[in-house]
């Protein structure tokens, strides 16, 4: 290897952004650890085909050398830091927000509330989520005001100076309670069931009547977080032509730009959204969060504004995985072949719809498992509660229903004294099988995956 040179730790490299021409500063620790930078370049792949090769990922060197520019590494001259005040109460009417004391603090450059947001709602299927709550708080993680200050510390201190007066309202936290007629409505006057899906094929009544054994069980799952190492983060800045540029950890910039255009009431061509390297997504960065707030604070102050969620906000103010309550009823013949399966899914949908409709749809379609079943009936619903919003998370409801259908599969196997591998082989989809929605399936390899895994584990019954 060639010579190394240690870079002056205090040095900052000014890099002009190619499109805006604005200077973008990176911290000294992000500078190349070794010079010249052509050291350690991976060997060029001289031959095609490129597909099927264990190609070194294009960002590997940057990650390895600590050069990957995540949002929190980016510094723009004059940049301010934003923080959002969280409600801390799950269900309340907002009687007043007093920001005067915070605004008077030295170093605080701007404070905004939901009333400053041109169109204060968003959401991928239902626009039921305010960017900042104005009249009503729907869950404890709702933002109610935002501050831009010259340092993160001052912004955090300013939050404590913002006084919000609440009138507590009835709340509901259990999805089964929320289904009851007399339950408090989370988004009145709408009812608490905000999405529903039914899938039926054949006649489950007939299927159960024809079954030798019928199994019934309820399964439940919990709320979990994506926990990306990089929390939600963004920087917003404006140019003299009234265009806004937002650097964001979003995984979906086309949708994010449309959401920004809607909430800021701006033409799409005046918005530039740059997706930076995302430090973990897992479904949690599929829609805007603080981006409109940062854009408005940046416009109000005339300075770039950065916002990075705290770990607590990552849990309380971003989406999570839906808790499921799943009732499974399955009828089988004496050989363990499934004749009928009836499924009822109740999704704890949290305070806002977010990606619940998608989660509900996928969960319902997948809920009977990768199995040939003539008679199926699935009823699934997503229910509002005054809890953290639930949304997209790796698997969209599939890990929940897989836990239920595969647990019940083993229950059936052990009751009928059939090997768990064997009962799955008997029921698995094959090429040309019909799905619960009536789709003819192609490129199906359930049995091959079962046998491959079983052989590798030396499963005793394999090949017997």
């Amino acid at each position, binding site marked *: 290897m060639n010579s190394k040179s240690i870079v002056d730790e205090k040095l900052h490299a000014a890099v002009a952004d190619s499109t805006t021409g604005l200077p973008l500063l990176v911290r000294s620790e992000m500078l190349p650890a070794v010079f010249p930078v052509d050291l350690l370049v991976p060997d060029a*792949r001289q031959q*095609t*085909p*490129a*597909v*099927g090769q*264990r*190609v070194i*990922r*294009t*960002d590997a060197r940057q990650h390895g050398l600590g050069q990957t520019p995540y949002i929190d590494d980016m510094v723009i001259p004059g940049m301010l830091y934003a923080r959002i005040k969280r409600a801390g109460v799950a269900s309340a009417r907002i009687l007043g927000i007093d920001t005067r004391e915070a605004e008077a603090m030295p170093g605080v450059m701007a404070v905004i509330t939901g009333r400053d947001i041109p169109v204060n709602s968003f959401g991928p299927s239902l626009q039921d989520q305010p960017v900042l709550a104005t009249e009503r708080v729907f*869950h*404890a993680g709702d933002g109610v005001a935002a501050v831009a200050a010259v340092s993160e510390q001052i912004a955090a201190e300013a939050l404590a100076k913002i006084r919000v007066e609440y009138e507590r309202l009835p*709340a509901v936290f259990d999805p089964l309670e929320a289904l009851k007629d007399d339950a408090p409505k989370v988004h009145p006057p709408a009812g608490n069931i905000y999405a529903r899906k039914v899938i*039926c094929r054949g006649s489950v009544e007939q299927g159960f009547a024809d079954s030798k054994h019928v199994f*019934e*069980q*309820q*399964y439940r799952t*919990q*709320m*979990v*977080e994506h*926990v990306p190492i990089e929390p939600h983060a963004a920087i917003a800045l404006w140019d003299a032509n009234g265009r806004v540029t937002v650097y964001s950890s979003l995984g*979906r*910039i086309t949708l994010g730009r449309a959401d920004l255009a809607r909430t800021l009431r701006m033409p799409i061509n005046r918005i*530039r959204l*740059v997706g930076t*390297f995302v430090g973990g*997504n897992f*479904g949690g960065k*599929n829609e805007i969060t603080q981006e409109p707030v940062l854009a408005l604070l940046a416009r109000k102050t005339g300075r770039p504004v950065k916002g990075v969620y705290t*770990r607590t906000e990552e*849990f309380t103010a971003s989406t999570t995985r839906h808790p499921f309550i799943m*009732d499974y009823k399955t009828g089988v013949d004496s050989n363990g072949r499934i004749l009928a399966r009836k499924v009822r899914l109740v999704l704890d949908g949290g305070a806002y719809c977010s990606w619940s409709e*998608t989660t509900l*749809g996928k969960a319902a379609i*997948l809920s009977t498992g990768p199995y040939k079943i003539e008679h199926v009936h699935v009823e699934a619903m997503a229910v509002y509660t*005054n809890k*953290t919003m639930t949304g997209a998370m*790796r*698997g969209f409801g*599939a*890990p929940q229903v897989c*836990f239920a259908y*595969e647990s019940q599969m*083993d229950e059936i196997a052990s009751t009928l004294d059939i090997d*768990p591998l064997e009962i799955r082989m008997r029921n*698995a989809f094959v090429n040309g099988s019909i799905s619960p929605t009536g*789709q003819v399936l192609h*490129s199906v390899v*359930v049995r*091959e*995956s*079962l046998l491959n*895994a*079983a052989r*590798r*584990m030396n*499963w005793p019954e394999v090949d017997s």
Partner: protein
Amino acid sequence: MKKRGRGIACMWYPIGFTVAANPSAATVKINEDGTATLLTGTVETGQGALTVLGQIAAEALGIAADDVHVVSGDTDVTPMDTGAIASRTTYVTGNAVKLAAEKARAILFEVAAPMLGVRPEQLEARDRKIQVQSFPQRHLAIGDVALQAQSVKGQPAIGSASWNPPTVPMDPDTGQGKPFNTYVYATQIAEVDVDDETGEVDVLRIIAAHDCGTPINPMLVEGQVEGGISMGLGFALQEEILFDAEGRQINPNLTNYIMPTSMDMPEIEVVFVDNYDPTGPFGAKGVGEPTSVPTAAAILNAIHDAVGVRITSLPATAEKILAAIKSRGTDGLKNIKA
């Protein structure tokens, strides 16, 4: 005493959105030396998507993976994309990239055909050459053709395309329809030790046999599977957001929200299930989400195999398992008539 058990779980999972349009667009520009630039509106979220998309473009152009530079994630520069969601990038964006590369390649074929004395449809792109199919000794370097196209013919080799998976809307009353164009399938088998005096679970080994169609980059597929299993393991045994009676989270921090660390990870063996989906780019489907789908089910079945208790609510904490062992049954959920 530690008791060993094994549990099996299989699954199916769709690629792309449920019925709804989720298009991707892409632009491929072949430079005058035969290298190329791919513009995509998707974002690298750690899964290696940009590397895979570059490989797809390279394959279509007959050049090497690192001949393709990928520009992504800037709405001023890159074409629209539905983004990193629904395990769709390799399949949907990949198809768009392949089509865009083929359009750019068609310009090269048109320029090369008269130079090689054949028709454009007789040509193929391989090993950085434009060559005659079944007669590769008649060929031109791709860079020479690209330079000729741009600087002599005035026809720069640029292709743009979009792709969207074809679906059929579901009937609102019966759910009948074709919500997805394709699905992937997988099985995971978990081997665990359960301490029947403490309820503690040690996941020792997971065999993960996954179908993703053609693995465009096997190393990145393995990475997805290993990451997915870590999420599945936390879902099975540890992770849970807890609320107080007022609806406020009581453990929103990494001290009290327990998730797996490298110390909790089992030995993982990834098995590729041989498959080729003709609707995907070079036979590929996807793998992102499915990797975390069967893990919890397999672990819970393994716990049952080890100590004979069936936990029906996640997470299966040591406390829950121990209580179930003591009462020798399930964890107390009643059967509810469906």
